[in-house]
């Protein structure tokens, strides 16, 4: 997938003018936060579980080599296969090699963000193998050749009319005058057509929400059941998982699961949570004959020991984007690659380079909402700030931004000048806007005032007031 993160500003501008998109975003932006709040309110221990979740992940990362080795040994004990992939290319090759060896013609897929990251579908298609996305949201995006706009609700930007139009265009075997009276009719059509794909597929590819070191298991979480059909019916099951997905024990996974669905969709549990361990056992009547896990690094090991290590705690629940005032307005596709919202603004520069994705960590007001809802307490604003520092160090910002920052820094390091300048600015603004109490245009900040008015300062600067208060005059 070609990243357009370097044009986040342009993407965002277009998104703001895209009326249907703005309608969709308006219709849904309040839903996820309300559902999460209700689920959290129903579990008094939730805050403590977040601390425990953070600690489990930190403990695992500090001993990641041990837990990955233990996990690998237990996969092999259970008759599974492990393929290590340093790069996206290694991972694509591992998947293709398995598919070729078993003579696969069609591959069904459960929803997997790492599969998007690795662009597995394009690679399979280029080699004559047909991938079929089976998550409803991913299915329509595949039809429309669009990237996901959300990590758990990939088609959240589309309206019912978009679904109907795409289904009529692509499902040409069905009567053209059929009626979609309800959303359910759209879903039923997809269910019927995809059922045939599930039954015909030679290989099923899923992601993994967790890997369990203790048992050598991979875990997937879905509401639709598509991931389970994908990993149960074909002869071969391939799991794509990144190295940071491992947790030590079933009890550790249980704590993470108590956080995941509540943070994501506001459910106590998703409908299907499935622990898979190896291939079909003697006597089993169903299940795949081969079980493979492709373990992907693709830049993650470089985060260990760096200021970005905390990001590896992420369990991909999407709470950060659901609560982000920027995401809620511009939508996920503006971020220009696989991972949108605050978690994407931290992860994307790591995976495709800060030169490509430097605008993303700047697309934040640092309101802190993301960190406050993160189930594993990742300090997302702090990590975005680290990226801004790196971007500055590498001279990647536009000249104007650098010059302004340099001027500001020069002034800020001279307290008397700074106080004089801010006092003068406050006075000038107060004078300019004294009639209305606000300004609809400020020189050099036209972009800012295009969307809102600037309330004029009421008198002194913060410094002056603070000094006054310290003297006991306030």
């Amino acid at each position: 997938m070609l990243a357009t993160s370097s044009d986040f500003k342009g993407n965002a501008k277009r998104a703001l003018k895209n009326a249907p998109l703005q309608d969709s975003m308006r219709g849904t932006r309040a839903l996820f936060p309300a559902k999460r709040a209700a689920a959290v309110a129903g579990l008094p221990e939730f805050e403590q579980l977040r601390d425990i979740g953070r600690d489990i992940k930190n403990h695992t990362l500090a001993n990641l080599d041990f837990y990955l080795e233990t996990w690998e040994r237990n996969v092999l004990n259970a008759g599974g296969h492990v393929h290590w992939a340093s790069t996206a290319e290694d991972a694509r090759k591992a998947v293709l090699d398995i598919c070729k060896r078993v003579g696969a013609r069609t591959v069904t897929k459960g929803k997997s963000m790492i599969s998007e990251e690795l662009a597995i579908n394009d690679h399979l298609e280029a080699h004559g193998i047909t991938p079929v996305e089976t998550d409803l949201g991913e299915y329509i995006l595949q039809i429309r050749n669009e990237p996901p706009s959300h990590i758990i609700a990939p088609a959240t930007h589309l309206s019912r009319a978009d679904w109907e139009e795409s289904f009529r265009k692509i499902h040409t075997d069905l009567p053209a005058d059929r009626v979609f009276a309800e959303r359910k009719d759209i879903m039923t059509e997809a269910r019927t057509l995809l059922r045939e794909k599930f039954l015909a597929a030679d290989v099923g590819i899923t992601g993994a929400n967790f890997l369990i070191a203790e048992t050598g298991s991979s875990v997937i979480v879905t509401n639709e059941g598509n991931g389970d059909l994908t990993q149960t019916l074909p002869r071969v099951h391939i799991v794509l998982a990144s190295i940071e997905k491992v947790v030590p024990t079933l009890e550790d996974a249980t704590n993470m699961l108590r956080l995941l669905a509540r943070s994501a969709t506001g459910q106590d549990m998703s409908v299907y949570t499935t622990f898979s361990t190896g291939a079909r056992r003697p006597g089993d009547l169903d299940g795949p004959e081969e079980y493979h896990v492709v373990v992907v690094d693709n830049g993650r090991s470089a985060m260990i020991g760096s200021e970005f290590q905390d990001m590896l705690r992420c369990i991909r629940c999407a709470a950060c984007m659901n609560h982000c005032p920027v995401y809620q307005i511009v939508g996920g596709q503006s971020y220009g690659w696989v991972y949108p919202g605050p978690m994407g603004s931290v992860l994307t520069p790591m995976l495709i380079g800060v030169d490509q994705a430097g605008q993303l960590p700047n697309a934040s007001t640092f309101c802190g909402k993301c960190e406050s809802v993160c189930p594993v307490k990742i300090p997302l604003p702090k990590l975005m700030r680290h990226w801004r520092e790196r971007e500055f160090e590498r001279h990647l910002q536009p000249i104007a931004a650098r010059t302004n920052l340099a001027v500001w820094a020069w002034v800020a390091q001279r307290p008397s000048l700074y106080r004089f300048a801010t006092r003068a600015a406050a006075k000038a603004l107060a004078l300019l806007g004294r009639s209305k109490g606000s300004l609809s245009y400020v020189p050099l900040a036209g972009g800012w005032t295009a969307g809102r008015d600037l309330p004029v300062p009421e008198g002194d600067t913060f410094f002056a007031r603070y000094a006054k208060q310290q003297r006991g005059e306030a």
Partner: protein
Amino acid sequence: MSRDAIFGAIQRGLRRGPLPADQTLGLYARLNAHPRHLVPQRSNLPHPQQIELFLRNLEKEFATFTSVASNDDVPCAVADYIASQNLPADIIIAPHPELRAIPWFNRPLLQLREGRAEASDLVSVQHGYVGIAETGTLMLPAAPHRPTTLNLLCDTEIVVLRASRVVGPFEDAWDILRREREGMVYGNFLPRNVMFVTGPSRSADIESTLELGAHGPRRLHVVLIDDTTAG
């Protein structure tokens, strides 16, 4: 070699070589003890109330249930449910000894076939391993006598569960599985898969609006056998 490169990079990041033996022993001890974390209090109840909580949560998640007094009442409960939903009486049933002990012949109109589900099967009867009150979740580990396809392919899944097998939190369910599969080779004590099912299949992918019946069963019905009272 990707494997060496990945482990090398991880250890470089952690600023150490392979873990020293004493630390490794500590980590093995943690794995073997697999300690519980904080367990939510909501299901910390006497068993009868755990059963009530389980049933309440089943309904919250859009599943339905019938409570019956004994094995003898199961065929009737299944037949009534099928009739109430206008479903065919052809049933694919798990080849589980506990299900075989049910007197199905009392309801000769029920057409039972044992095995895995095929695409054409509309109604399945599955053996419930454990019910988890905390969230109204069914634990369904794969086994020769508990095929996974019964949980996935049919429009309607009926799960027969004994009330004595309802527990409070997930940790208690794992304990039962660990205990009953003791003696399996270390690392392989889990069956091929363990499915946790919480209500019927659903999706909110179309305009963030919840609809039931995405890819898995459209209906989930539990027949709960009360085997907890004496006699």
